């Protein structure tokens, strides 16, 4: 299934929104960590893994998912959260550890939960696969609609959980899709140094599931490939591995200088926001003016969200003792 013009505009809008958000976070991140850089300082502390360059992996896949479907993301969750439609205010506030954030500050950048969006993420590599497949299992058992999708990086495909969950997805014919965003790096280790074969989608053959590789970080190609995987999932044909060639434009986390990435590789990295904009304009789907409107619209929403976060209060220290158990009072 090819995306309509409206869908393409929406995807463009989504990647811009995600990019604007990440740009503002990046700015804020470094603003108050000087003169001695300290992860613990500033309005946005801790490690931040931005989605710069990988936005199409989310923007191209999410249009196929409804609110009955479930998503698990990983340590690099901003593009997934934003393209899933999470509220920017609550997202920004969570990154700042504010009371108004999705988890009232308990989760942070790597632990964003929105139960209404059936969205969660976590910081342990490949950890999101099991829960996603488990939701798929639950839906299948209850003969209920809803598929499940997990997002992760190419390096995560060498974690044991990948193997175990994909095999179970195959055995139980689950409505589940494992999306692999191949940015060629797991922190500082290149795919070649960590992965015995070229294409993780070919590992689908080990699990009796469908595998597809999208060789360019392009919203349209991703949209089409995802439609095939989603069709399979919804029609009872089982699980897929969807592997997307993408680019990690700003290093593993904020502060990573990428000294280990060969110059030629850096030079060859494509910026999807520019590429897709040019493509849509050249194909007459979007005018320069519309594109600018989208950018300024998203910029202002992001600015407002950041401001919301900044203006929000911190939780009380004693809030740490709330919601420890659902039913047990210790």
């Amino acid at each position, binding site marked *: 299934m090819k995306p309509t013009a409206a869908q393409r505009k929406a995807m463009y809008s989504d990647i811009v929104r995600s990019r604007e958000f990440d740009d503002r976070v990046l700015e804020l991140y470094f603003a108050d960590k000087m003169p001695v850089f300290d992860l613990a300082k500033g309005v946005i502390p801790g490690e931040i893994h931005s989605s710069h360059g990988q936005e199409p992996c989310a923007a191209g896949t999410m249009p196929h998912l409804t609110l009955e479907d479930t998503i698990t993301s990983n340590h690099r969750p901003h593009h997934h959260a934003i393209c899933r439609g999470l509220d920017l205010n609550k997202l920004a506030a969570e990154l700042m550890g504010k009371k108004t954030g999705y988890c009232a500050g308990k989760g942070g950048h790597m632990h964003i939960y929105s139960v209404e969006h059936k969205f*969660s993420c976590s910081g342990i590599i490949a950890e999101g696969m099991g829960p996603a497949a488990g939701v798929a299992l639950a839906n299948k058992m209850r003969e209920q609609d809803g598929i499940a999708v997990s997002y992760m990086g190419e390096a995560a495909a060498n974690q044991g959980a990948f193997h175990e969950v994909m095999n179970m997805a195959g055995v139980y014919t689950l409505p589940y899709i494992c999306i692999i965003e191949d940015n060629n790096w797991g922190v500082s280790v290149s795919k070649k140094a960590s992965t015995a074969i070229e294409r993780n989608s070919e590992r689908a053959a080990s699990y009796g599931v469908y595998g597809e590789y999208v060789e360019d970080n392009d919203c349209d190609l991703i949209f089409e490939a995802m439609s095939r995987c989603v069709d399979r999932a919804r029609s009872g044909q089982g699980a897929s591995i969807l592997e997307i060639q993408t680019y990690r434009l700003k290093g593993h986390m904020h502060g990573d200088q990428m000294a280990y990435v060969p110059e030629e590789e850096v030079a060859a990295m494509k910026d999807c926001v520019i590429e897709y904009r040019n493509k849509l304009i050249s194909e007459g789907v979007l005018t320069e003016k519309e594109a600018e409107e989208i950018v300024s619209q998203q910029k202002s929403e992001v600015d407002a969200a950041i401001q919301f976060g900044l203006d929000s209060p911190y939780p009380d220290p004693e809030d740490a003792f709330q919601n420890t158990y659902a039913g047990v009072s210790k």
Partner: protein
Amino acid sequence: MSSERTLTVARAGREAVMWEMQNDPSVFMLGEDVFAFGGVFGTADGLGEMFGPDRILDTPISETGFIGLATGAAMAGMRPIVELAFVDFIGVCYNAIVNLAAKHYYLSNGQVKVPMVLMLGSGGGYNNGAQHSQSLLASLAHMPGSVVVTPSNAYDAKGLMHSAIRSDDFVIYSGQKKVAGVGMLGTPIKTSMSVVPDEPYTIPFGVANIVQEGTDLTMVGVSWTVHQCIEAAERLQSEHNISVEIIDPRTVVPLDRDAIFDSVKKTGKLLVADEDYQSFGFTGEVIASVVERDPSVLSCAPVRVANPDLNIPYSRPMELRVLPTADRIVEESKKMLGL
């Protein structure tokens, strides 16, 4: 109509599972060897036939995978019961237990519930070697976010299983293999069997059971060591006229520190028996919990009877040496009491 039935721990727990499965379609079981085999320790005996392969789900040997799946199913509103057989296998799925299932509720600030039960079989004493005889309770209880249940008798096993399945929290339900009373481990321990009502009933988490009252010495045990304490107490009573109070916390998370403290306050003496490795474990926690309230309640040094921090040897005489048996408890008690 309630008949007087004496059940084993395994059967009592299974009865609760059965009732919940019959009454709540969201409850299902998954794990290795549950469907046709009925669980390695009989925890699912007969359930496969009763509920079919879609609700009693055999899994591959992929513990990280299936605990991950169960967590997702629980997040989606199901109530999975995961059978892990040997607690020794937590090594291959510790992350799924302590970093995944045990963290969602808190980190999501209560948005995401994980109403899941993880069933484990712990303990040794039957010469099954170092990787099939461990207790490992502390490695689980140490981590926040889960409830840890350790029934020592059939009555508690059933009530706690009902509570576990109905709980909206992630509950680790740790059975002890010899306490369970499964066929291949010989005659069931007499004191583990109880009259069990037909009707479902629940037992609250965090409320200790005072197995017997006494005035001279408090013994705290969990699961198998409760029975070692009972045996030791009988011998101390009959041979030395010592009156022992025995506390079975029943759940180690949450731990009923009040009950333990109150007992020690009365007796002035504390012995803690645990099958797990001694250091950084249950025995230290119990002792610290008492003395951090008030060390003056102790009239002499508290004593720990646990595995002396050794990997568990296979050979019978050596394994018996590291187990916290009634013999060791009697011996240590006598030293404590100056007998």
